[in-house]
C-alpha cells in the first residue's frame, strides 16, 4: 500500500484540551491514558524497589526500620501488581491495538471502557491515600494474608478497597475485549485469521472476567472481618485462616496469567516481524493461550504447600502445576522454531523478545522447582521465590511490555526512536536485571528468608551484587524512557510500516486516524503472518 498523499487527521490532532482526553471514548486515547498512569505508577514502585535494595545492601538497619521496610515492600507489591502489571498490556496495548488488529473502529462498549479507566484512577488514588492518612500504608505484603491483615493497625482497609476498585476496572476491560472479539471482527477476520496478540487478550479477558470477582469478595471479607469482627478467618471466632489463602489464590494465581499471557501475545507479534517469517505453529500458540488460562485456574494450591493444607490436596495441586508448564513450553518452542531459518533483523524489540525467552525460561523452570512438594518445603518463603517471581513478572512480562513499547512506538506516536540509544538501554537493563535477581535464587537456596529488612552476615556478598544490579537496571530503564521522550520530539517521522509487519495495524497511517483506517483494511488471505504476501514493507 502506498503512502497516502493527504494524511487524514490522526487521533492526536482530532481534538485538543485535557477534557478531550479524560472524557474520550476513543480506545486509542483511553489506551494512552492508561499508559501515562501505568508508567507513572511503575516509576513510583520502582523507586520503592530501589529503596528496598538499598536497605539490603548491608545487614542490620541501613536506611529504614523493620516496619517501614514492611510497608515499603507491601506498597511496592500492590502498585506493581495491581497498578502496573495487571493493566499494563491489556489496558494499554490491548485497548490501543485490539480493535485495529481485528479491523474495527473501537471496542464494543467505548463508554464502559472510559469508566474502566476512571475506576483505575480511583483505585490508584485509594492506594496512594494509604501513604498519607492514618497509621501509614499496609505492612502485610501484597497478599493481605489473614489473620495478620485483620489485626494490624496500618491502612489495610483502604489498601484492600483500592484493590477492590481496581478489580472492577479489570473486569470491565475483560468483558469489553470478549464482546469485541466475538462481535466486531472485520469481514473475513475469522478466529484463525486473528493475530496471536488478540488470542492472548481473549484468553486473558476470560480470566479477568471470571476470576476477579472472587478477589473482590475476598477483600470485602477482610474489611468485614476488620470492621465487624465476623470471624471468617479468625480461628478464635471459628474462622479459618487457610480459607483466606484459598480464596486469595483462586484469583491471584490466574492473575499471574493475566500478567504474563498478554505479554506472550506481544512476543508472538514481534518475533515473526523481525524474523521475517510466518510464525511456527500458529494454532498451537493460540490454543496454548486458552490452555494456560484454563489450567491456570486449577493450580492455586501450590502457593499453600507449607501452610497447613491437606497432604492429598498438595499432591493434586503439585501435579496440576506441572501440567501448566506444557502449554508454556509449547509457546517457547514455537517462538524458537519461528526464528529458525528466518531473515533475522536484530532491532531493539527483538532483543527484548530474546531476553523474554531467556528470562521466562529461568522463571518458568524455577517455578517447577517450587511446584514440586519436597523442594518447596526448603524454598518456600525464601528469596528463591522472590527471584522466580521477578524472573517471570519483570524478566517476562516487564521486558515484553518494554519491547512492545519500542515495537509500536512508531505506530502510536508516529516517530522513530533512536535505535542505538535503545540498544544501550536494553543492554543495561538486561545486565542489571540478571545481576539483581539471579543472586536472589542462590540466596534462597542458601536459606535467606524473604520479607525481612535484615539478614545474616553470610549473605552479604550476594546482596551487594543484587543491589548494584538494581542500580544498573534503573539506569537502563531511565535511559530507555529519556530516549523515547526525546525521540517523540526529535525522531524521524515514521511510515505506515517501518518494520515490514503483516498484521492490520501496519496498514493504517502512523499515528492512526480517529476511526483507525483511512481505507477498508485488507484481511490477508492466508496466515496473518505471511511475509511472502506482504507488499507493504
Amino acid at each position, binding site marked *: 500500500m502506498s503512502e497516502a498523499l493527504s494524511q487524514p487527521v490522526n487521533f492526536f490532532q482530532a481534538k485538543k484540551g485535557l477534557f478531550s482526553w479524560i472524557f474520550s471514548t476513543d480506545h486509542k486515547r483511553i489506551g494512552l491514558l492508561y499508559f501515562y498512569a501505568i508508567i507513572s505508577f511503575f516509576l513510583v514502585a520502582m523507586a520503592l524497589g530501589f529503596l528496598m535494595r538499598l536497605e539490603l545492601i548491608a545487614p542490620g538497619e541501613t536506611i529504614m526500620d523493620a516496619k517501614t521496610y514492611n510497608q515499603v515492600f507491601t506498597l511496592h507489591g500492590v502498585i506493581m501488581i495491581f497498578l502496573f502489571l495487571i493493566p499494563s498490556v491489556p489496558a494499554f496495548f490491548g485497548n490501543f491495538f485490539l480493535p485495529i488488529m481485528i479491523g474495527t473502529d473501537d471496542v464494543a462498549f467505548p463508554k464502559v471502557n472510559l469508566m474502566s479507566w476512571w475506576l483505575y484512577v480511583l483505585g490508584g488514588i485509594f492506594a496512594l491515600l494509604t501513604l498519607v492518612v492514618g497509621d501509614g500504608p499496609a505492612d502485610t505484603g501484597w497478599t493481605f494474608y489473614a489473620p495478620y491483615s485483620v489485626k494490624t493497625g496500618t491502612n489495610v482497609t483502604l489498601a484492600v478497597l483500592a484493590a477492590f476498585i481496581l478489580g472492577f476496572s479489570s473486569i470491565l476491560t475483560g468483558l469489553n475485549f470478549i464482546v469485541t472479539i466475538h462481535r466486531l471482527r472485520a469481514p473475513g477476520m475469522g478466529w484463525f485469521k486473528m493475530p496471536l496478540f488478540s488470542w492472548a487478550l481473549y484468553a486473558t479477558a476470560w480470566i479477568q472476567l471470571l476470576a476477579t470477582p472472587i478477589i473482590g469478595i475476598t477483600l470485602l471479607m477482610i474489611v468485614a472481618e476488620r470492621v465487624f469482627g465476623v470471624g471468617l478467618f479468625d480461628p478464635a471466632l471459628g474462622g479459618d485462616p487457610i480459607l483466606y489463602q484459598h480464596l486469595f489464590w483462586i484469583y491471584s494465581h490466574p492473575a499471574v496469567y493475566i500478567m504474563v499471557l498478554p505479554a506472550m501475545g506481544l512476543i508472538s507479534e514481534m518475533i515473526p516481524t523481525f524474523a521475517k517469517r510466518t510464525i511456527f505453529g500458529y494454532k498451537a500458540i493460540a490454543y496454548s493461550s486458552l490452555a494456560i488460562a484454563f489450567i491456570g485456574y486449577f493450580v492455586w494450591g501450590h502457593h499453600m504447600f507449607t501452610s497447613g493444607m491437606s497432604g492429598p490436596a498438595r499432591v493434586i*495441586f503439585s501435579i496440576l502445576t506441572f501440567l501448566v508448564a506444557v502449554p508454556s513450553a509449547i509457546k517457547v518452542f514455537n517462538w524458537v522454531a519461528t526464528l529458525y531459518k528466518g531473515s533475522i533483523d536484530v532491532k531493539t524489540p527483538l532483543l527484548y523478545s530474546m531476553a523474554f525467552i531467556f528470562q521466562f525460561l529461568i522463571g518458568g523452570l524455577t517455578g517447577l522447582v517450587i511446584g514440586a512438594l519436597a523442594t518447596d518445603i526448603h524454598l518456600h518463603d525464601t528469596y528463591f521465590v522472590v527471584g522466580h517471581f521477578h524472573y517471570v513478572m519483570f524478566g517476562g512480562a516487564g521486558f515484553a511490555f518494554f519491547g512492545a513499547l519500542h515495537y509500536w512506538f512508531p505506530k502510536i506516536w508516529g516517530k522513530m526512536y533512536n535505535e542505538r540509544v535503545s540498544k544501550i538501554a536494553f543492554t543495561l537493563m538486561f545486565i542489571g536485571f540478571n545481576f539483581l535477581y539471579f543472586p536472589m535464587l542462590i540466596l534462597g537456596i542458601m536459606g535467606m528468608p524473604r520479607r525481612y529488612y535484615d539478614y545474616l552476615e553470610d549473605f552479604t556478598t550476594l546482596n551487594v551484587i543484587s543491589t548494584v544490579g538494581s542500580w544498573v537496571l534503573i539506569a537502563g530503564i531511565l535511559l530507555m524512557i529519556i530516549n523515547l521522550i526525546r525521540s517523540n520530539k526529535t525522531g524521524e517521522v515514521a511510515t505506515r510500516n517501518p518494520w515490514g509487519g503483516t498484521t492490520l495495524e501496519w496498514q493504517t497511517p502512523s499515528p492512526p486516524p480517529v476511526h483507525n483506517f483511512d481505507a477498508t483494511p485488507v484481511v490477508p488471505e492466508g496466515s496473518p503472518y505471511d511475509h511472502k504476501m506482504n507488499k507493504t514493507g
Partner: protein
Amino acid sequence: MANKNTSRHLPGDPEVHHIIPYKFHIGIWVGLIILTVMTVLVSVMGISLVAFSVITALIIASAKAVVVANYFMHLKYENKLITWLMGVTMLLFVVFIAFTAFDYITR
C-alpha cells in the same frame, strides 16, 4: 420457539429477534414461584426429598438457575458457543468449591 437456522449469531449478521408470548414467560415465572415455595417448605417443615435439606435446596436452586438462564436470559436461543462458555464458567465454579472442600475433608 426459535428456528435452529436463525438462532446463530455470527459477526455481521443482523440481530435475530425471538417473539415469545407473554403467557409463556408467565408460565416460567409461576414455575419459579412453585420451586421457591418448595425450597421454603424443605427448610421450614423439614420435608426433604433425599434426607439432606441443603442438597435438596441446592438442586432446586440449580434447576431455577437453568430455567432463568435458558428462558429469561435467552441462552436457549443463543449460539451454541455461548452455552459452552456458560458451561465452562459453571465448571470452574464447581472446581473452586470442590478443590477447597477436598482440602478440608482430607485435612
